[in-house]
């Protein structure tokens, strides 16, 4: 017994140290920087000011936020549409096939997502694998415009974030009591009705968990839209990076990070509140 609690102390303690050292302290530095004055030498001077918060709510930053949120939201919806049927299918097949499928889904994620994004470029570029194949079949006369399009951006984002949606969905679909579906069918419900009135509400916790886990990273993943979309528009990530590395305005970059974190915090709070309501069985109040 004594041994066990010792291990627990070490495990919890080292995790806490790690988080404090590499998450909490750096974040506090960012918060502190957001209240300081930019220094011409490229860092900050220790003079308290609210200027960066006054400056941050400019029309440009609002457009940047709008673009980022629109992109993250569309990515979440597309990922949900792609993941739901797959997760449902996973619960309806034999154990061994399911294990293989989940393994196949996870294996690519042992590689860096940056490398996988470059692999997508090789597939989609004008003289890439897809275009060369279609040209050799004679189906097209000149290369299709695939890379540096919205389509490429969504392909990259949905592909990268898909497992974060599938796994929570699968977990809640697995808990689904199939007797409820049988009962509904016996009572004459049509398939769409069964889906919208039974399956969907019962898997709502999975949908909310998956959507949160896709939406939050999608807000920050600016290198995928940059590499696959051609960097033609600015996202929050680009904005923050530019403030630090080009404009040399660290307080402004820090205040943008603080605002982004606050927005994410609100989303997570909403997620916790709604999942608690679902557990209490009050479905109507969720959305």
């Amino acid at each position, binding site marked *: 017994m004594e041994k066990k609690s010792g291990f627990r102390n*070490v495990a919890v303690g080292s995790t806490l140290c790690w988080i404090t050292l590499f998450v909490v302290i750096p974040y506090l530095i960012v918060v502190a920087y957001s209240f300081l004055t930019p220094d011409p030498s*490229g860092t900050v001077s220790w003079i308290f000011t609210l200027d960066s918060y006054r400056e941050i709510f400019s029309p*440009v930053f609002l457009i940047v936020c709008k673009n980022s949120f629109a992109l993250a939201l569309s990515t979440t919806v597309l990922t949900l549409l792609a993941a739901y049927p797959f997760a449902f299918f996973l619960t309806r097949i034999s154990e061994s096939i399911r294990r293989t499928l989940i393994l196949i889904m996870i294996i690519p994620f042992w590689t860096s997502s940056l490398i996988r994004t470059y692999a997508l470029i090789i597939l989609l570029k*004008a*003289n890439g694998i897809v275009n060369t194949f279609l040209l050799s079949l004679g189906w097209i006369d000149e290369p299709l415009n695939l890379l540096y399009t919205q389509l490429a951006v969504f392909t990259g984002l949905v592909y990268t974030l898909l497992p974060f949606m599938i796994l929570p969905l699968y977990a809640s679909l697995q808990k689904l009591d199939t007797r409820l579906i049988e009962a509904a069918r016996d009572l004459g419900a049509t398939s769409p009705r069964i889906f919208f009135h039974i399956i969907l509400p019962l898997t709502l916790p999975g949908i909310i968990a998956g959507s949160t886990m896709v939406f939050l990273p999608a807000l920050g993943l600016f290198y995928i839209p940059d590499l696959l979309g051609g960097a033609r528009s*600015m996202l929050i990530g680009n904005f923050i990076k530019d*403030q630090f590395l*080009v*404009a040399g305005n660290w307080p402004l970059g820090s205040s943008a990070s603080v605002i982004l974190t606050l927005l994410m915090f609100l989303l997570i709070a909403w997620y916790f509140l709604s999942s608690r309501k679902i557990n209490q069985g009050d479905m109507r109040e969720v959305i």
Partner: protein
Amino acid sequence: MMKKLFLILMVLVFPLASLAAGNEVYVFNWSEYIDPSVLKTFEKETGIKVRYSTYESNEAMFAKLKLVKKNGYDVAFPSTYFVERMRRYGMLKPLDRSMLPNMKNLNAKLLDKPYDPKNVYSLPYMWGSSAIGVNARYIKPSSVKSFNDLWNPAFKGKVLLMDDVRDAFAMSLRSLGFSGNDTDPAHIKAAYEKLLKLKPSVKVFNSDSPKQPFLNNEVYIGQIWGGEVYQASQENPNIVYIYPKEGATFWADNMVIPLSVRNIKNAHAFINFMMRPDIARKNCEYVGYATANAKAQALLDPKTRNHKAVYPDNRDLERGEFQADVGDAIAIYEKYWEMLKTR
């Protein structure tokens, strides 16, 4: 219990301790800016282990060196106008000439410039330009003579622009007849309005590796560095470099020793090694930018020495302009850049 804790601590601490010791030199350079075999030769000849890291922009390098006060990098490669800035903020160590005998190999024309009089803090490494790249298979190179040709509606959707506020604006400013280092807000605004007209034609913004969209046949014309064209032309000879009549933007990168140096002797040894003619030649032939080393220039393979993207002729050199610091005006540039990217 205590034994276990001790073991865990040992496992955590041991690699750190072994890292601290040893004869090393910490080099901080631009990405793809050296022949990797040169580092191996240096290690073999001197027994000094090279810890090599790279950066993508002067600003990123500057920010990192500004934060590291001790035990940082031994050698860095800022561009001329950043040498000036770092010198002003006291971020550099003066060089000890007695440890740099290979200095005699450098091109005297590139020494003792206003950004570092008498080369107290820096020695030139390579220089080059940013101008226009064209894929000759799709666009006749002789039809492109000016930056204004990028605005030709025939190239719509096939244009590459640098994803760098200074580079993109310098091109637009030059096309309007202004200096690429202009700090006049009205001129910067005019350049922004002109870039806004170009944006619908731009397929991709890229300054990490602008040769890639050319090699992928995604773009046929665009703003690019000479060295990138040199490297790309080895894979696809159709990709050529054009110095526009408004003049290209030139820059030079320099070897310096930051104040946070770990081992000053090794730092000098590395800089001296980089100035050896055979080494400078290898680097030049590998990356395709012009070497600042006169002896190495004479040794170059004629294919490299006569490559227009590497060595411009005198007329193109005279028409060009060196990139300089724009000071506080960078905030104006950044504001218009954000507007350009959100439209």
